[in-house]
């Protein structure tokens, strides 16, 4: 028995790197005469053939509108869409499909909560975020504060890019109406201690929203274990298509919040005096949803689970160690974001080379990275930088990709010396 368990652990902690890479047609190409080394996964990941096929199959055989017609295609589309919802529920271990709302992506998921929270917030109330948030977890709350007279409070971080947890917990008070923070920082890769923050906020009955855009693709996430009130993530960062994302919401909260958009799908009955809203999750899904996107996301979840989230996390952690080690060996490289617990993202600067110029030189070497402020201007301001270069990894990357990046850095350093 123990033998079998050991074998299983052995199997699940290892990915067949070459086989996995072959699943991604987009990676099999040359850019400016060099093999593509795609290191911009935190911006958007690539889709395996399995996801491309699932979307085509849906379009070729099953497409119609959902929850409306009595005809066969409508039933198939509805079944596919609702099967995708159930698949998401299992993936995040939500208690019920009522808690899984399809959105356009993380940004829309956060905007949904911020819009629906309008009536919960009074002048002088506080929304608590952190200094390392992506603009999509800053601006919706700023807009809510502007509408209601509430105040946006920002928990500080240190030079390594770690949250000052004690300071953040001290900022929780009777006026705090909601806490919103990233599970994993998109610019720094920092993994935040969300469990401790959720527990402390709940002691005061404060709901917590987690921006999981950079966490969901890289490790298993469990809504019931995490115990957060809202969790937002995007399909296109986890090998799915763009334009589909998820808002997980605790049922008790979703029942309490009003819908944020009106239209078809989200109603039970409409007359000109009053509308009765549909039950969850449909109350928050006005209009025809992104059905093929949901089908693609579901296929992406199947794909990730076929590899195993633990195996993915193990593989990416090894690659991150190699990336960090190799970058540290390059003369003139300064690492930005050196938290103790990190996901597969590394921001850095190369002395004497502006990140934008570096991005162009690396592109000529076939290496795709992100350069700029990473939609986190307040964070760049904290470091006193206009921007950084950022390499972000996925399980389909390999050491050759990282070596290609390092070679590109040498070319850039020489050119701008």
């Amino acid at each position, binding site marked *: 028995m123990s033998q079998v368990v050991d074998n299983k652990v052995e199997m699940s902690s290892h990915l067949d790197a070459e086989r996995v890479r072959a699943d991604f047609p987009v990676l099999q190409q*040359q850019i*400016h*005469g*060099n093999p593509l080394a795609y290191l911009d996964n935190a911006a958007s990941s690539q889709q395996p053939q399995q996801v491309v096929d699932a979307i085509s199959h849906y379009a070729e055989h099953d497409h119609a509108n959902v929850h409306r017609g009595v005809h066969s295609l409508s039933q198939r589309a509805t079944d596919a869409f609702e099967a995708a919802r159930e698949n998401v529920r299992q993936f995040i271990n939500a208690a019920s499909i009522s808690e899984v709302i399809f959105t356009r992506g993380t940004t829309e998921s956060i905007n949904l909560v911020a819009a629906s929270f309008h009536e919960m917030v009074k002048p002088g109330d506080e929304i608590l975020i952190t200094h390392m948030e992506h603009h999509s977890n800053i601006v919706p709350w700023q807009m809510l504060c502007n509408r209601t007279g509430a105040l946006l409070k920002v928990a500080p971080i240190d030079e390594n890019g770690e949250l000052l947890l004690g300071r953040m917990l001290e900022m929780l008070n009777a006026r705090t109406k909601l806490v919103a923070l990233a599970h994993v920082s998109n610019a720094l890769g920092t993994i935040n201690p969300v469990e401790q923050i959720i527990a402390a906020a709940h002691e005061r009955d404060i709901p917590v929203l987690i921006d999981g855009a950079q966490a969901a693709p890289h490790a298993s996430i469990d809504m019931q274990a995490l115990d957060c009130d809202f969790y937002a993530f995007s399909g296109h960062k986890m090998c799915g298509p763009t334009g589909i994302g998820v808002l997980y919401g605790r049922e008790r909260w979703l029942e309490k919040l009003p819908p944020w958009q009106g239209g078809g799908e989200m109603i039970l009955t409409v007359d000109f005096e009053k509308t009765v809203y549909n039950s969850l999750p449909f109350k928050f899904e006005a209009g025809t949803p992104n059905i093929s996107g949901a089908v693609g996301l579901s296929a992406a979840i199947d794909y990730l689970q076929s590899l195993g989230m633990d195996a993915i996390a193990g593989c990416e952690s090894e690659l991150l160690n190699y990336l960090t080690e190799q970058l540290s060996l390059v003369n003139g490289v300064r690492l930005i974001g050196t938290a103790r617990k990190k996901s597969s993202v590394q921001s850095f600067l190369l002395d004497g080379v*502006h*990140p*934008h*110029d570096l991005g*162009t*030189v690396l592109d*000529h*070497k076939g290496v795709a990275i992100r*350069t*700029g*402020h990473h939609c986190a201007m307040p964070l*760049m301001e904290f470091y006193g*930088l*206009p*921007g950084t270069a950022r390499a972000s990894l996925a399980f389909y990357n390999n050491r050759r990709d990282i070596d290609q990046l390092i070679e590109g850095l040498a070319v850039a350093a020489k*050119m*701008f010396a």
Partner: protein
Amino acid sequence: MIDTADNSATELQSIYRQRVLDYSRNPHNFYRPKSPDRQATGFNPLCGDKVTVYINTAEDQVVGVAFEGTGCAICISSASMMTDAINQKSVGNALQLIADIKTMFSEGTEPEDPSLQEMLALTNVRSYPSRIKCATLAWNTAEAALKGDSSQVSTEDQDN
């Protein structure tokens, strides 16, 4: 399109010509004058490039141009060339030169004015649409300064 690796190196050199690299390291007129009578600040929110252009005029004539800021090699070298190109020109002529440069990047036309010949070193930036804003930032900012528009210029409000 698949190029060879050698072409890639040549292509790279065609954007980062030696002159561009030289100016990015040692830009001309990189300082803040004591009392500029016109100035404007331009910002590229996509990459964080930020330049402030200072202009002194006397009787409708540009008699001094300087700039300060942070940016990539293309942004800084282009800004340096701008300060040389529009200095000692009438305000009307300076605005025309700026318009010619904007057309050069949007349409691919080569400007004929001898004051703009150095800028030909940057024409290949056109092959990189995301970088054109780096090259035009200082020119748009100079235009705002000349027109007396003191509000901040953003590349996202411009055609280029």
